[in-house]
């Protein structure tokens, strides 16, 4: 089986940002994403999900290493300062590298 290395970028952030981040991911060259609602806590306090304002969201993107790097840079430049957000990258392998 022929596995190919990819990056998995995970973003946890305020729900209000969903549309904007999906837009940014497309601009950075990602070909897809997966999102779901989460709850959590961090430096900016506990986030439940009863008001959209205080809702929390996890977005996962599989992307080529170069794209993943661009994504992180954009997140850093556009969102890290002002919003409750965590982002991290991991290594994964996929069968169909052309999909990402």
């Amino acid at each position, binding site marked *: 089986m022929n596995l190919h290395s990819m990056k998995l970028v995970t973003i946890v952030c305020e729900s209000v940002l969903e549309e904007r981040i999906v837009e940014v991911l497309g601009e950075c060259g990602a070909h897809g994403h997966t999102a779901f609602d989460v709850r959590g806590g961090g430096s900016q306090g506990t986030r439940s999900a009863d*008001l959209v304002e205080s809702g929390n969201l996890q977005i996962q993107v599989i992307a080529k290493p170069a794209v993943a790097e661009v994504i992180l840079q954009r997140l850093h430049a556009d969102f890290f300062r002002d919003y409750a957000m965590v982002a991290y990258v991991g290594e994964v392998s996929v069968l169909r590298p052309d999909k990402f």
Partner: protein
Amino acid sequence: MDLLTAIQANLLSPAVLFFVLGIFAAVSKRDLKFPESLYTTLTIYLLTAIGFKGGVAIHQAGIGAVWLPALCAIALGALIPLWTYPVLRKVGGMSVADAGAIAAHYGSVSAVTFIAATNFLKGVQEPYESYASAFLAVMESPAIIVGVLLGKGVLGGGRFSLSDPGIRHALRDAVLGRGVLLLVGAMGIGALCGKRGMDAVEGFFVTPFQGVLALFLLEMGMVAGRRLGDLRKVGAFLLVFGVVAPLVNGFGGVALGKWVGLSTGGAMLLGVLSASASYIAAPAAVRLSIPEANPTFSLTAALAITFPFNISFGIPLFFEAAKRISH
């Protein structure tokens, strides 16, 4: 019924008491674990029901009766940020961003406060223009736009660009957010269907309405209660502002309502709308367009001070004011 009786009757209504129960649950850290979807579902129901009923009322009253007070309502919403912003800046010492953000919240409106006020009127059997929900629909957006402009520093020549994606998303949300769409949409449907349509859906949109509001206020109580802890963080100025602003706006709204010819009930509703602060549409739009504003300030003021004040004391107060002015 005098003011004290009205306040007491209001405080002992299921709606207000369920709100208090919600606060108690939050404060005593007993999470009632209301599912997220319940909150959204109740919101959808309340907005649709109030919109539809308002539309049927417009059908019966004719659009001719509605446009002038609706225009006043729009003006009220747009003007409130203009007086609150300088007060927040000068008296409160707030940053441009925070002052604009808070001004947007207080100019915009809270649908649930409005609904609680209509229930109060039903309870004391005071008639009102049931098309008043049209005012609710038109007051949500203008204040947000004005507040965002202020918060982006247009007064001080600040940067404000429609190509900023945050501002783009925010303005789209403000002008035709889901709340406005549901409300205006259901109102249009009610206006087209009239009485015949109401007969069909009354068992859903009217019969359980007051009980659903009570359940929703239980949930709002938890939301507000969780913010109580932030009261320490917002400072004394905002505590005072959270009570004084609704009083000023509320009495102003009542007076304007009377002036434009609304009944006692209708003027009271316009007062309640002015007094209320948005905690759904404004927060989302402001978060996207003025990210540098601290949401703890605006949300704590709107949710933990002004909202409870309005539904407990504000509503009977503005009702009393509306009665006085009429005599």
